[in-house]
């Protein structure tokens, strides 16, 4: 799965969780997206686990620094 594909599917996950399209870039952080709080964070994690068939570790559940980093994390888990 390429980085672009992961970005694409992740946009779908964000739309599913937030109920609206969310503009995602490498540098996007939780502060840039309205409503991205700790509750939504957990939903994003479990929805991403389902979408990408990966499992995040406890230390990875709290906010990643930005979306780019999160995509890198998924990339590394999918190998």
């Amino acid at each position, binding site marked *: 799965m390429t980085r672009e594909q992961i970005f694409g599917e992740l946009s779908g996950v964000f739309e599913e969780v937030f109920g609206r399209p969310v503009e995602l870039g490498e540098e996007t952080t939780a502060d840039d997206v309205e409503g991205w709080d700790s509750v939504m964070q957990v939903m994003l994690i479990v929805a991403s686990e389902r979408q990408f068939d990966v499992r995040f*570790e406890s230390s990875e559940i709290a906010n990643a620094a930005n979306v780019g980093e999160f995509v890198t994390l998924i990339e590394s888990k999918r190998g």
Partner: protein
Amino acid sequence: MFVWNGFDYIRLMRLGMEDRGADHAARVAVLGWCTTQYYAAVLRGLGAAGGLPVVTYEPEYSAVHQAVLDERSQLYEFEPDMVVFLTAVQGLRDLLMSVDLPDRPATATREADQLVSLIRRAAQIPGVTVVVNQLVVPYERTWGNFSWQVEGSLPNVVERINKRLRGVAAETANVHTVDCEHIASWLGKRAWFDERLWFHSKSFCHPEALPHVAGQALDIFRAVKGMGLKCIALDLDNVLWGGVVGDDGLEGIHLGDLGEGEAYVQFQRWLKELHRRGIILAVCSKNDDEKALEPFRSHSAMVLKETDMSCFIANWENKADNLRTIARRLNIGLDSIVFIDDSPFERNLVRELAPEVCVPEMPDDAADFVPYLESLNLFEAAEFSEEDRKRADFYRSNALREAEQEQFKTVDDYLTSLESEALFERFDDAHLPRIAQLVQRTNQFNLTTIRHSAEELRQFAEDPDYLPFYVTLADRFGDNGLISVVIASREADRVEIITWVMSCRVIARRLEEFVLDELVQVCKEIGVTQLRGTYAPTKKNQLVAELYERLGFRLVEERPDGGTAWELLVDEHAPSGAPIARKVLELDA
């Protein structure tokens, strides 16, 4: 009706976050020793999707004690219809593990005592239903399988607390428990327990399990409010047996013995068990009537008999119309019917043309019918009484009456032919549970919709200033049981009807006229000259808006909310001649 068919908890959560409820929404307080937001969102999502809008109130994290014990807290201001206690075994586990083995049972008892006192206090909120999540038995088994033999082991201690919670539910009518241990084992405890999410956000289960946990709390609420499903309307071919009886013949259908045929027998056994519980069974099949009846009459492996079916419709009309006929004959709402059919065409047709009906998808393999339908928890019960056991028979005789009515020229001829007999008696202890059930549940024939508590009803029974009566009705088709309650209070020479309810089962039987005749008779005996009654409108009791007028009362007051007050002079009332004979209560020697 909406059926929870998948596991899309994310969609439900989002729906719940968007939905802000409505004025007429059910008010649910969610109290937890864990994060409550996820549960509350799924609950609102399920409510919005299922046509039962929900608004929630959640106190601060883990502030359950303060919320319940402080009567000035927002919990009481919120005036909840339902209070849910979300227990988290993870927190309890941490507490128990900090205590040495010999002290654990005492610690567990103390925790249980606290929880029980909170439950009991919350249960005193007027009109509330309390739902408590039972604990999931922890997966930590320090002694392996031997853990059950060790008194202070986590599984043992937690099971003991669960037993206590079930005990409270058994002795308190408005307290119910959700069997989370069942849900967790059904989904798999490995899926239920997600320790990462407990550590990170104090989630008591993986969100995937939430639609089940929250859904069953709503199921309980519906059952308590009498909004549960009452009737299963069944297709026949490839539902009760394999194959098509019209084509394959009696000998050709798969039923009994081994393999596929046994799966249908098991499904029938499951239906029979629900029937014993009081769920009504009906047939809704595209078939020739005679062919459809043949297996019921002649196939040795049939578990269900013709007499188990309260209403039997086999013809070539469309099934949405047939379901309406079933609803009419049984005198139940379309929204209390679940329709089971193997054909996607028929299911979709009913969903389109009779959207009130609950239409679950069905698995292709008959061996999956029961596990699948069980997973939907369609038939939650709020209680189980003798009355419930007999219910299917009531409805069967109703349908027979309905069919016979078509032969009579006038309704009165027909009613007279029924040879009806009724009891009209003051409340007694033996009948109080059913009286409470009727007062609690009746929506349509209900003049004032005052939900008296069981305790109030008991007090009426003992108070000479009250005239509390129950009414039963039987006829040659069967016994309808206790189907009406009228409560009046006496002040000097006037009697005021404060509550009058009647089951929909017996509407259009002139029973209300009989009840008034009897009540007037009582008034005469105690020297009362005036009888008064009130109609307080709700969304559901339009049926009785003109009842008092029809019974000869005079309008004395019209209120801004549409309510009306009525008066009848006892001496001016002429007996109605309703064709119902009053029966005298036979006391057991």
